[in-house]
C-alpha cells in the first residue's frame, strides 16, 4: 500500500457526495485523482484507472451529484472521462444540458433531486431556463419551494413556475407555504380553466341542495363535472333523497351549465 503526499497536481474530485465513503477519514486516490477524504494531506494510492475506483466507491449517485461531478470533470478532463463514469443516458446533449442547468442550482435543490429520485425529463424546465438565458439563480425562491414538496408536486411547481416566468417575463410573487404556492401557480398557469371551474364552484355553493346531499365541482384531467354525495340511512330515506334530487335536477343544470 503506497501512501502519497498530495501535491499541487493532484485533482480533488470533491463533488460533495451525499454519502461519504466509510471510514470518513479514509483518503483514496488513483492516478492523480483524489476520490474521498478530501480534507486530507496524504492519501492511499490505488493502482489502476481512477474512473474504475470512482465507480467502486460511489456505485449509486443521484443527478444532483452528477451535476456537481460534471463541473469538476469538465474542468479537468475530456469527454471520455465523463463517458467512463456514467451511463449512456447521461452522454446525450439533452442530458448534459440539463445537468449543466442543475449544477447552477442550490445544493439544497440538488439534494431534493437526489432524495426524491427526480428524473432528467422532470428537470427539463431547468434546461429551458438556460436556453432562454434566464439565470437560474433568479429562480432560487421557486427552487426553494420546490424542494419542500414531494417529487410529483415539486415537478409540477417547477414546470408551472418556469412556464410562467417565460410567458410573463418575471416570476409571479411567491408567498405562503410550498403547497399554497403550487395551487397559486397552477391557477395562474391554467388561468382560463381555473376561472371557469371557480365560476361553477361558486354557483354550486350558492345553489340550494336538498338535505343529505352534498355536491362538488371536480376536475379530473381534461374533464370537470359535478360530483354528488348522498347520505341515506335506509331504503326509504334513499328513495326520498333521490326524489328530492330529481326535483332539483332542472334547477341544478340551469345553475351549473347555463352557459354551456
Amino acid at each position, binding site marked *: 500500500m503506497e501512501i502519497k503526499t498530495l501535491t499541487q497536481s493532484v485533482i480533488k474530485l470533491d463533488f460533495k457526495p451525499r454519502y461519504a465513503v466509510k471510514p470518513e477519514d479514509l483518503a483514496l486516490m488513483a492516478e492523480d485523482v483524489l476520490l474521498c477524504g478530501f480534507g486530507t494531506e496524504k492519501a492511499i494510492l490505488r493502482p489502476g484507472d481512477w474512473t474504475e475506483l470512482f465507480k467502486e466507491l460511489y456505485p449509486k449517485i443521484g443527478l444532483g451529484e452528477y451535476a456537481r461531478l460534471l463541473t469538476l470533470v469538465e474542468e479537468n478532463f475530456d469527454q471520455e472521462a465523463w463517458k467512463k463514469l456514467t451511463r449512456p443516458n447521461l452522454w*446525450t*446533449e*439533452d442530458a448534459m444540458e440539463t445537468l449543466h442547468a442543475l449544477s447552477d442550482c442550490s445544493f439544497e435543490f440538488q439534494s431534493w433531486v437526489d432524495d426524491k429520485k427526480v428524473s432528467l*425529463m422532470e428537470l*427539463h424546465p431547468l*434546461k*429551458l431556463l438556460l*436556453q*432562454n438565458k434566464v439565470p437560474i439563480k433568479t429562480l432560487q425562491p421557486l427552487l426553494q419551494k420546490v424542494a419542500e414538496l414531494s417529487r410529483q408536486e415539486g415537478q409540477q411547481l417547477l414546470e408551472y413556475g418556469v*412556464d410562467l416566468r*417565460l*410567458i410573463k417575463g418575471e416570476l409571479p410573487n411567491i408567498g405562503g407555504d410550498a403547497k399554497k404556492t403550487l395551487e397559486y401557480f397552477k391557477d395562474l*398557469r*391554467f*388561468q*382560463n*380553466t381555473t376561472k*371557469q371551474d371557480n365560476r361553477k364552484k361558486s354557483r354550486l355553493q350558492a345553489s340550494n341542495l336538498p338535505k343529505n346531499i352534498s355536491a362538488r365541482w371536480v*376536475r379530473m*384531467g*381534461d*374533464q*370537470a363535472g359535478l360530483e354528488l354525495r348522498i347520505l341515506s340511512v335506509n331504503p326509504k330515506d334513499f328513495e326520498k333523497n333521490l326524489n328530492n334530487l330529481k326535483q332539483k335536477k332542472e334547477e341544478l343544470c340551469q345553475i351549473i351549465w347555463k352557459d*354551456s
Partner: protein
Amino acid sequence: MSNHLERLIDQFDNVFIHRDSRDSQVSDRLISLFPESKIHIVDEKPRPEKTGHLSSNEFEYSKRNIYVTPHRGSFFKRCPGAKPGLVCCNYFVLNLGLQCNMNCSYCYLQSYLNTPLLTIYSNIEEALQEIDQIATQHPDLHYRVGTGETIDSLSLDPLTLYSSELITFFKKYPKWTLELKTKSNAIDQLLDIEHADNVLISWSINPQFVIKREEHGTASFNERIAAARKSRDHGFQIGFNFDPMIYHENWKENYSQMVKTITSAFSPSELQILTAGSLRFQPEQRFMMKERFGMKSLVNQGEMFLNSTGKMRYDSELRNEMFQFLIDTFKEASRDWHITLCMEVPETWATTMASTPRKIPEIRDLFEPRPRA
C-alpha cells in the same frame, strides 16, 4: 425549375442515398436535381449511433438531411385513430417516408421520430404491390388510403413525384380513395396528369393568424385555398381538415373568418370531406415543443390536460365549444355542410353532434369497420 423545387433544393444540406436505393427512380431524380456536393451514396445509414429519442438539435438536423433507403416491412397500416376509446373512420395509411420539410410547433413527429434524417422510401413499387394484394382480396370494399401520416403527402412531391405515381395507380381501383393530406400548395406537378375521380386532396387548415404563429414553412391560408381551387378545377375531389384547432384569444373571430372564406369559395358539394380535431400531443412532446418554439407559441401556452387516451388535450368543455362553434358557423352558411370529428373520443362526438358517426347517415359509410389489412 419551379419555386417549390428551388426552395426544397436550398433547404436540404445533404441527400444521403443508400447504395441499395441507388437504382431507384427517386434517387435518379434527386441526383439530377441537387448539386453534386450535396449527394452522398452511403453503405449504411448516416449517424447510426443515434437511436431512440431525438434532441431538439437532432430533430432540426433531420429536417435538413434526406436519406433515401428501401423500406423494410409493411407499408400499409391502419390509421392511429383506430384505437379502443377513439372513434375512427377506417382510414388506412401508406407511409412513403418519414419526417417533413415544414415545421409546425405541434407536429407529432417530434415525439415519434427516432432517426435524425428525413427518410424517403425508394421502393414505392413494393408499396403498390401491397395495395394490389389487398385490393384483390377485397375488391368491393371502399377503402380510404392516405399518405400523410408520417410525411406530408405533397410538400416533397416536387422532389419525389410519388403522388403522380399513386394517382395513376389508383385509377385501377375506382372503389378505393387515395387521400393526399397536405399543408403545402405544391400541386402543380399533379396538374400535368389526368386526374382520377377517386383522388381526394385535403388541406389541413387553420386561420392565417394560427398558420403564421404555429405552422412554420407551410403554405399560407390563401395559398392553400388557391391550391384547393386549382385542384377542384382540375377535377380532383377536395377537402379540408380543421385540425388541430388551436385556442387563442380571438379564436372565434379568426375561425369564423376562415369559415366565411371557405363557404364563399366552395359549395358544400364541392368539398368531399371536412373534418375537425383539436390540439393534442403526447405528454413528453411538450419538452421539445417548448425548446423549439418557446413559450410565446400558442401551443405551448395552451392549457393542456392529460386525457384518458394518454394525450394532452384542452379541457373537454372548451373542445366541445370550439367544435360546436365551427359546426354552427358552417351551418349558418348552409345546412348542407357536414363536419366529421377526427381523432376524438366518443364523449366529444356525443356532445357536439348529438350522435356518434355511425348513427349519422351522411357519414356512416366512412366509419363502417373494414377488414384489417
